[in-house]
């Protein structure tokens, strides 16, 4: 973990107003989508963010890419504060941070040819590639494993996996430093998922990219990430390296989440150790006081409701392999 910090989010908070009366009325409350998240992405590495629907992982991605402004907190790219960057400067910034989206069907304009789709970022940024635009596009298509001769075809002529490759080529067009991938493989079949993950790893290796990789599928993140943040109700509850997290999760929620994933090994010993959580995730409009997981936690005591645990190292000696956990009574690994 010696490589330098590339992208950093400090105390990021994003609240969405909820349920106002009339157009100018005051909102009744706020959806606390992201609530005090600190996150660091290092150069050439992959930061995985996992969590269930509504935990704020996509909002966090959109705040980090400056697609939406945080309510408070700040974002740094290579040490520079980019939280308040606007106008022209913001447009230049967009070259450095690109995004890959979940649905390869709705993220490509059906009326544009593949060539136009991939060239659009270069046209908007008025970057003329060496040689012609067409050459650069075909080079990108080859890079992501598409046939460059298909330059003039339209998205409907491609399969789901190929479309996701088009989305990746578009994200690469401006030579970004960071790629934020929001559930890039969850709409694809298993055999195709593996192809796309291999491609992303290959590109990271060849081009020195850094990824923020968001997924609800824990095994996908385990494979690709150098560090994993587990989110629950707008907060990071555990931050650890994947081997440590998956073999010995510290936060009870991480433990329950991991145990709920069905394993492709029939009726093995892990069956009886499955933890089935009771109830639902509470509403992010009025999240519970103290630890947000306390109501569903089998270890919760009064102190969990009285005081919110902070994200900290729970080992006796701070050790980067142990990771951070936001829990008063973390699982102790041996």
């Amino acid at each position, binding site marked *: 973990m010696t490589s330098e910090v590339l992208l950093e989010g400090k105390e990021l908070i994003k609240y969405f107003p909820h349920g106002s009366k009339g157009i100018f009325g005051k909102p009744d409350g706020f959806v606390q989508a992201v609530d005090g998240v600190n996150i660091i992405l290092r150069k050439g590495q992959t930061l995985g963010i996992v969590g*269930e*629907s509504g935990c704020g992982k996509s909002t966090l991605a959109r705040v980090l890419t400056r697609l939406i402004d945080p309510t408070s907190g700040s974002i740094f790219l290579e040490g520079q504060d980019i939280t308040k960057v606007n106008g022209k400067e913001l447009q230049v910034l967009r070259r450095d941070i690109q995004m890959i989206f979940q649905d390869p069907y709705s993220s490509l304009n059906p009326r544009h040819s593949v060539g136009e789709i991939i060239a659009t970022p270069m046209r908007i940024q008025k970057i003329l590639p060496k040689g012609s635009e067409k050459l650069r596009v075909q080079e990108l298509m080859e890079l992501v494993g598409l046939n460059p001769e298909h330059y003039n075809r339209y998205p409907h002529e491609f*399969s*789901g*996996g*190929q479309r996701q490759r088009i989305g990746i080529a578009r994200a690469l067009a401006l030579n970004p430093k960071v790629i934020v991938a929001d559930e890039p493989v969850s709409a694809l*079949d*298993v*055999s*195709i*998922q*593996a*192809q796309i*993950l*291999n491609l992303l*790893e290959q590109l990271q290796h060849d081009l020195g990219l850094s990824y923020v990789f968001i997924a*609800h599928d*824990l*095994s*996908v993140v*385990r*494979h690709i990430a150098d560090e994993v943040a587990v989110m629950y109700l707008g907060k990071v509850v555990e931050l650890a390296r*994947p*081997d440590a997290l*998956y*073999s010995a999760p510290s936060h009870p929620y991480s433990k*329950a*989440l991991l145990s*709920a*994933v*069905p*394993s*492709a*090994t*029939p*009726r093995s010993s892990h*069956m009886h150790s*499955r933890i*089935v*959580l009771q*109830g*639902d*995730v509470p509403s992010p409009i009025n999240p519970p006081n103290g630890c947000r997981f306390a109501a569903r936690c089998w270890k919760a005591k009064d102190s969990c409701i009285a005081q919110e645990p902070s994200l900290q190292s729970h080992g006796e000696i701070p050790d980067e392999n142990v990771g951070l956990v936001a829990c008063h009574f973390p699982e102790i690994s041996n």
Partner: protein
Amino acid sequence: MNNVRLLSVENLNVEFSTSDGVVHAVNDVSFSVHSGKTLGIVGESGSGKSVTASSILKLNTGITASTSGSILFNGKNILGVDDKAIRAIRGSEIAMIFQDPLSALNPYYTIGSQIIEAYKVHHKGVKKKEARKIALEMLHRVGIPNPEARIDEYPHQFSGGMRQRIVIATALINSPKLLIADEPTTALDVTVQAQILDLMKDIQRENGMAIILITHDLGVVAETCDDVAVMYGGRIVEKASVQELFVTPTHPYSFGLLGAVRSLDNSARGELQTIAGSPPSLLNLPSGCSFLPRCSYADASRQQCASFVPPLQNVLPTNSLSACHLRAEALNVLKIKEPS
């Protein structure tokens, strides 16, 4: 009650005529389901698994669809009965739950009225009060907290997991003998998925119904099914017990699918095992084995593979059936290691 052959599907073919040509969605599919057991149908998108399931309820009607073969349910050929008779079976003897619980529920009606409607359709002349009582019991059974207060609420007032519980309650209100679940947990989070799968298993243990579970998730199959049919290009390519499929898969496609999932489960970083290429178009299936273009084992017997479709047959000295021209030795079936 257990081990009665409840449903047997023989040589089912379903075709749809479209402006682009005839889509051969299901080709020569045969399987049977026993009471108290769960059959998993796995496959990727477009493999024909949902069409197979909806044929059992005779839902693929209309002028563009043509179905042939036989579907025997409790000795009755479903494909032969008229509309009135099939309506008596739908929702009472055979029930179905779908992937997306929000679109399965009508947003304009309370959940109570939707469950009661399902009951009254098959119990003509039942008193309103009694139907409501039965609906309340069912809601309680599927784990809706405080059903008396929530029965008069609308679908949007429930979470995704709770909505799927309501859909299950509606499906089970007439105590069906067969439940067809088409990707019942795909739209749900993993922790909720675990709750819903547990619930389905519990109810099956209680009333001994048979379940056909359609899914693309091999993990779900491993944890809930007794037998599995793997579909590819509209055909069943492997039929086995769960144990057999996961320990000794005999079809190259099952092999590749398991490999892709297992290498994800493994902690080691490095290249993931993939299946090259993409699934075939159902508009023009290859004349031989439809997996041939993606198969990495077919070199020696390519001629045979390309010329005719392999029948489902015994490959190993087990009960599993595989539609592959290659013999067990050629497939090197022992290559899959248990994940450590």
